[in-house]
């Protein structure tokens, strides 16, 4: 799962799409998985997702994502399936638990929808450079650069802080703090005081980062400063049309 959102470099069809149309496609696919109520149709969307990942050359990562999502799905499934008590009983279990056909169908749909709706966003973000995404938002959607820069910086700092936190935990374990305990409550208690060093180093880091950006002309930046321009090409229209068709199909099948 590590680095799932990390940009995967490439020159594939999917990579070449306009960042904006990529987002639209992801959104449409997401919507499609909620717009229908048919198990096969939702499976179809997952297949489309995998196809997209295949075209983008990140099928390995898509599968690892799929597995992770299904793991989360199983937990959700178990929680749901025993909760819904309407419909015909399919299976009787001890402790007054039983599974009904409505419950089963609902729970399966829930899991499939979760998978179908999460995948497109993750896949698209993996094949889109953050800077392209923010540039296009500034140029086409007229969002102020300040906000997109803050967003991009926050994203960039996540792995850095994660790394810092791992380092802190290692350092504390090495001096005998029992992070290797199996008790999660105890672990959380031990973790809290460590927020102090993390906070202090973060503040220093962010301050340095702000100075560095300022010294490289951040304040001079205008809406049209971006070097790259993002035009829509034929491919974009085809891909978007295709996604709209999927959405329409889903609505009709409903």
């Amino acid at each position, binding site marked *: 799962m590590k680095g799932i959102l990390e*940009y995967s*470099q490439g020159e594939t069809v999917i990579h070449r799409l306009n960042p904006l149309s990529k987002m639209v496609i992801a959104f449409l696919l997401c919507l499609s998985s909620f717009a229908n109520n048919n198990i096969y149709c939702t499976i179809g969307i997952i297949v489309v997702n995998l196809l997209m990942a295949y075209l983008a050359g990140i099928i390995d990562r898509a599968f690892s994502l799929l597995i992770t999502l299904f793991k989360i799905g199983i937990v959700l499934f178990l929680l749901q399936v025993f909760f819904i008590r309407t419909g015909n009983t399919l299976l009787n279990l001890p402790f007054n638990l039983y599974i009904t056909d409505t419950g089963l169908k609902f729970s399966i749909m829930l899991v499939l929808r979760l998978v179908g709706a999460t995948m497109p966003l993750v896949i698209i973000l993996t094949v889109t450079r953050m800077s392209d995404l923010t540039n296009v938002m500034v140029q086409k959607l007229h969002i102020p650069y300040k906000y997109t820069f803050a967003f991009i910086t926050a994203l960039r700092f996540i*792995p850095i802080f994660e790394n810092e936190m791992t380092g802190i935990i290692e350092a504390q374990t090495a001096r005998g703090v029992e992070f290797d305990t199996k008790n999660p409550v105890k672990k959380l208690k031990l973790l809290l005081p460590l927020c102090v060093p993390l906070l202090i180093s973060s503040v220093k880091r962010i301050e340095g980062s702000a*100075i560095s950006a300022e010294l490289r002309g951040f304040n001079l930046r205008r809406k049209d400063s971006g070097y790259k321009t993002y035009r829509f090409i034929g491919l974009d229209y085809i891909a978007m049309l295709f996604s709209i068709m999927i959405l329409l199909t889903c609505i009709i099948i409903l």
Partner: protein
Amino acid sequence: MIEFKDFSFKYKTGEKPALTIKNLSIPKGDFVGIIGNSGAGKSTFTYAVNGVIPHHYEGDFYGEVRVNGCDTVESSPTQLALSVGSVFQDIDGQMVSSVVEDEILFGLENFGVPKEEIDQRIKDILKMVGIEDLRYRNINTLSGGQKQKVAISAVVAMMPDILVLDEPTAELDPQSSLQIYNMLKMLNKTLNITIIVVEQKIMLLSEFSKRIIILDSGEIYLEGAPKEVLSDTSRLTDIGVNCPRVAALANNLNQLKIYNGPVPVNVMEAETMVRSVLG
């Protein structure tokens, strides 16, 4: 050209001035190494040149610092950034993008470099530094040395006259550190960029810089060409600054009255020295 005149700066939280410089001028094309113990005022020196003081950190600013004739107090840090490029110790913190190309684009875009020039500039700088193959790489996947090269390239792409670096090799291994210094030397030579670098590794400074400034408790303690500064190593050890062993050897031989020539700044020169002593 950088000029300090009756300069002194005290941070808002400090009790005494962090740095006081009566008179100092650094001509264009110089390669200045700054060394000293912690609290000696090394970072403050870099901040005085790139305008981080008094614009970012507030405090009592006395005297004047002029960069290419512009008073740093009157110009904004962004204006100064046109002539002064800055590189910091925190390699990850100073980056603004996740891809090498975007990192270099950032400054070029902001300073309004004409769009038709941009691609050529990126190509030129990457080629000069020898990292053409890294152009589309994700910065997270690079080694520390490569990242620092990218950071320097991003700043040099804006074609500053002066490059200020605050301990750029602190997190690097000896080989990467040497590569960074070779890169600085090349930039100094081919583009005539003035280099001001704060560094703890005296051996790198003695070999690469044209001038060494030793700071101690907020003042200039010693200043001059490496050979001058190192000619009496006891002055360095007195304030707890390290000196290259070959310089110490020359000093020892000098005291034994078997050598009184120039101080070697690297092993090659030391070899010449020893051979001359032994005839």
